[in-house]
């Protein structure tokens, strides 16, 4: 419950954001941040809760993006259909990627996921008829209702809503027999099996869910950006995504939200704060420092801060 309060609060802040700015670059950036938050939330679920690792999340991100682009541009489908197709295909790919996790753990699994990400990336570059290859995929439709294009501010609310739904689903799942089983599996595979639970199915579900969110994020990105090139789908993006989840807090409901938004905005702050040449360098240093000094991630810290402020206004909100 405490955690839900935090999440609701954070999302409230997000919802209010467009009211304070109409700078379209800022709004575009915040939209990217929300996309990353959705993706990182999936990683928190996969890694923090279910104990599996993926360094190939950019692969699902790419699958979502190119599928939705293909469905809308080449097949003339509406955006909703494209996005759903992107999610579905990503989930299927996620199921497939979960198969090696039945046998492999930690480092070995991370290598397989890296290979998965790289293979998808190479397909993006080489399957030119579908993806446009290195020269890009153009003319992807922007969000609209009827004939009216949405503004960046409206898209922001749409993405915020989707993020909220993602976090809400994760919250409900975590506090159910499924979530308990996943946390148990994170602690001890064999003991979980002896409780009559199929860890294979759990791993499939966890990979599927996180891949679905990554696919959703990719599809949302495709229609936000309007064109796709292979750059945002490299291995380095995959490692950034994992960094987001870790910095935000792997075991925290808000980890993906905090990390996804934080690590999208941080480089931009640095860039416009007079660090044009060094911002990426400095970002990686800051991430390393956070990992060393705050291994729990920023989510829990923000939560306690938030609850202190919250308690000042209402004193008896303690439940369970």
């Amino acid at each position, binding site marked *: 419950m405490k955690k839900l309060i935090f999440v609701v609060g954070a999302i409230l802040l997000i919802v209010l954001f467009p009211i304070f700015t109409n700078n379209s670059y800022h709004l575009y950036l915040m939209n990217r941040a929300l996309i990353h938050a959705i993706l990182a939330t999936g990683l928190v679920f996969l890694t923090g809760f279910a104990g599996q690792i993926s360094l190939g999340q950019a692969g699902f991100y790419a699958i979502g993006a190119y599928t939705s682009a293909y469905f809308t541009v080449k097949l003339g489908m509406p955006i909703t259909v494209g996005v759903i197709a992107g999610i579905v295909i990503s989930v299927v790919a996620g199921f497939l990627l979960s198969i090696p996790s039945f046998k492999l753990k930690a480092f070995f699994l991370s290598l397989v996921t890296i290979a998965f990400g790289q293979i998808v990336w190479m397909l993006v570059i080489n399957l030119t008829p579908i993806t446009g290859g290195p020269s890009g995929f153009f003319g992807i439709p922007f969000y609209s209702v009827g004939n009216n294009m949405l503004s960046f501010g409206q898209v922001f609310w749409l993405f915020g809503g989707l993020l909220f739904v993602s976090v809400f689903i994760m919250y409900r*799942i975590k506090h159910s027999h499924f979530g*308990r089983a996943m946390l*148990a599996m994170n602690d001890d595979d064999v003991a979980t099996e002896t409780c009559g639970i199929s860890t294979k199915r759990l791993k499939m579900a966890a990979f599927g869910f996180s891949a679905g969110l990554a696919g959703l994020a990719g599809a949302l990105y495709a229609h936000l950006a309007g064109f796709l090139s292979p750059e945002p789908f490299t291995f380095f993006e995959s490692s950034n995504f994992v960094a987001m989840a870790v910095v935000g807090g792997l075991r925290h409901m808000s980890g993906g939200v905090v990390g996804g938004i934080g690590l999208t905005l941080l480089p931009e702050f640095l860039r416009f704060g007079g660090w044009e040449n060094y911002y990426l360098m400095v970002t990686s240093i800051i991430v390393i420092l956070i990992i060393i000094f705050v291994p729990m991630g920023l989510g829990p810290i923000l939560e306690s801060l938030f609850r202190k402020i919250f308690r000042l206004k209402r004193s008896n909100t303690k439940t369970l």
Partner: protein
Amino acid sequence: MDILRTENMTKRFGGVVANDNLSIGIPKGQITALIGPNGSGKTTFINVATGVHPITSGKVYFKDQDISGMDINKISRLGIARTFQKIRLFENLSVIENVLVARKPFYKSGPMSVVLGTPKFRKEEKENKEKAMELLKLVGLEDRAYDSPTGMAYGLRRCLEIARALALEPQLMFLDEPAAGMTRDEFKVIMDLMMILKERGITILLVEHTMDFIKAVADWVYVLNFGQVIAKGKFDDIEKDPLVLKAYLGED
């Protein structure tokens, strides 16, 4: 009638033959003890029977169904529960959640009802929590329900592991040295608990080193040495068996 029996069960680890052609029957509704010197293959027997280790050759039957080669979770859901020699709890979950994990097979709600929070799911959750609480009461952990198991006294941790195994509503339980490292009082608790389980009709296979314990609870004893059965029978007969004496004295 034997609830579980093995036919020429063999388990090899590289060159080590941990279980050598074992044909063992566990009579239904009774407490069977499996004893033997260190490294004689007792834990391996449990691991193979519960599917934790794949069997090298031979068969395991549970209620006449061949379960050799089945996934661990399937075997568990058939009604075979176990504890581990080295206690294995879910340290990131609370005490009651540890028990609830083993209730998962009884839930019928799918992910959709969970996300929507349907009344059916809430009811299920409530019932299973009550059931878990009942089990915690049985082992005397009801006021620790929301604590973390990490750092709890050894005896309590063992009781929690037993409660978790019971949550599966098993017909057969494997207990691997449940009383090892326990104080006198805790020892007594486990012993009473086993009698209660027996009264409830649960078959128990007990691996134990303390002879007093076995004498007090076991109906039937198997003695292993180097992975083979060297004696079986009532405790009083086993006690005098020269082979058994030799195995134990040779060991010490």
